[in-house]
C-alpha cells in the first residue's frame, strides 16, 4: 500500500517538475491580458504546485522518509 502511494506521489512530483516549463508553448509569443501566455501557465502551475504540496503534507507526509532503513 505504502509502496503504491510512494510511486504515485513520485509520479506526481515528476509531472510537476516536467511541466513547470510549458514545452508545448515553445516558440509561441502569444500575449493575453498584458502578459505572455507561457507566463500565465507558469502562474497557474505554481499555484497548482502549492495546492498539491498542501494535500501531500496533509495526507501522506512522512512517506518514504520516516522509518526508511
Amino acid at each position, binding site marked *: 500500500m505504502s509502496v503504491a502511494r510512494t510511486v504515485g506521489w513520485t509520479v506526481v*512530483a515528476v509531472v510537476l517538475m516536467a511541466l513547470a516549463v510549458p514545452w508545448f*508553448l515553445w516558440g509561441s509569443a502569444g500575449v493575453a491580458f498584458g502578459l505572455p501566455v507561457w507566463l500565465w501557465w507558469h502562474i497557474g502551475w505554481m*499555484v497548482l504546485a502549492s495546492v498539491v*504540496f498542501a494535500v501531500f*503534507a496533509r495526507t501522506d507526509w512522512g512517506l518514504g522518509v520516516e522509518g526508511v532503513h
Partner: protein
Amino acid sequence: MADTALQLGIVGAYMVVALAVGVVAYRLTDRSAEDYYLASRTLGTVVLLFTTFATLLSAFTFFGGPNLAFAAGPEWILVMGLMDGIIFAVLWYVLGYKQWLVGKRHGYVTLGEMLGDRFGSTPLRVLVAGVSLVWLFPYVMLQQKGAGQAIVGLTEGAVPFWVGAGGITLFMIVYVAASGMRGVAWTDTLQGLFMLSLVWVAVAWILAAVGGAGEATAALAETNPEFLALGGGLYSPQWMLSTAISIAFGVTMFPQINQRFFAAESKTVLKRTFALWPVLVLLLFVPAFMLGAWAAGLGVTVPEGSNVVPALLAQYTPTWFAALVIAGAMAAMMSSSDSMLLSGSSYLTRDVYRPLKRVFGEGETAAEDAREALVARIGVVAFATLSFVASLYTPGTLVQIGDTAFSGFAQLTVPVALALYWQGTTRYGMYAGIGGAQVFYVFHVFPVVETLAGVVGASVALPTAYAGWTPGIVGILLGLVLTVGVSLVTSTAPEEKPAVYRVDGVDAD
C-alpha cells in the same frame, strides 16, 4: 547633490533599523552553540519561511535576474520557478525533512557533523566543510558586488563602488558578531516582507506610469519581439534545465539553507513552509524579472557596470522611492550575507578548527571554548574582508558568479542524498563522489587544464558544455556514479554507523 544626501540618508536609516533588530535579538540569545547557530531549534513557520526565502532575496534576485531578463528575455522566471518553486520544494522534503529528523535525534548542527558521525570520518567532515566554504566565498562576494553597484547606480557615480561594497561588509561583520541565528532570522522576516511589498509597489508604480501591463508588454513586442516567445537565444531547453537543476541542488547544500533544515521547531512548520513555497517564489520572481524585461521595451539605458532595476526606478519613480528600494535590496543582500557568514563560521569552528585542534591533542576546557568563539569571529572578519577585496577586482556578471557558486554546491547533493537513504554507501564512496565531482567541476570553472597544458606547450581546453548540458550537471552525474560505484566495491569500515540515520516519524512529535 541634495538628492544624493537624501538617498544616502534613506539607505543609512534603513541600515540602522536593521541593526537595531539584531541588537534586540542579541540580548535574547544565550551563548550556547545550539542557540547561536540554530536559535535552539525553535523557528516557527513565518520565520522559517521568510528566513529561507530571504536567502533568495539576494543580489542575484534583485539585480542579476532582472539584468538577465533585460538582456535575454523573461524566461528566467520559468527557470527560477522550476528550480525554486518545485525542485527545491521536493528536495526540502526529501533531504530537509530527513535531515531535520536525523538532526533532532542526534543533535547535529552542521552537515559535516552529520556526515562525519555516520561515516566515522573526520576527514569527510573537514572535506564537506572545506568545499562549502570555498563556494560560499564567491556568493558572499556577489552580495558585496551587488551592494557596490547599487550605490553607484543610485547616486549616479557620486559615491564610489568600494563605499557600498565596504559598507555592507562592515555591517555584516558587526551583525554576525553581535547576533546569532535568531537575529538573522528576525531581520530576514522583516526584510522579506518589506522587499516583497516594495517590489509590488514598484511594479504598480511603473505600470501606472506607462499605462498598464498591456502597454508595457506591447512596447516590448515592438522592440524585442523575441523576448515574448518562449525560448530562443540564450534559452535552450538544455540550458534551462541544467541551470534549474544545478541551482536547486546547490541551494540545498548552501550552508545557510542546509542549516535551516536543522532549525525548524516542528514537523508542522516544515509542512507549511513546503506548501507555501511555490506561491512565495511566484510572488517574488514574476514582478522582479518582468521589471527587467519591460525595461527593455521602455528603452531604459543601463550605464556600464550598473543594473537595470535602479535605472528603471530612477526613470519612473521619485528619488525617495528608488532610494528606499535600493536600501531594501542592500539590506536583503546583507541579510543573505550574514546568514551565510553565520553558517560559514559554524562550519569553520565545528568542522575544521575543532577536529584540527584534536589532532594537536588539546582538550575541551573553558579557555578552549573562549578561543573557539574567537576563532569564529576572526574567521568571519577574515572571510568577509577577503571577499570584499575580491569583489573590487573580479570581473564577471552577477549571474555568472552566482551560477558558479550554486553549481559548486550542487556537486554535494547527490552523495548526501545517497548517504541519507542508502545504507550501502561507504566512506570511500563519499570521498570519491564528493572529491571526484568537485575536481571535475573546478577544472571546468578555472582554467587549470589550459594553464598546465600551456606550460608544456600544448593547447588543450575542456569543453564548456556536453551536448548542451553544463559541466555542473555532468559533475552531478559523475558524483552519482562515483559514490555508488566506489561504495559497491569497498566495504564498510568498523567505525561507520550505517543505521544512524534510521528515524521514525515518532521522533518528530
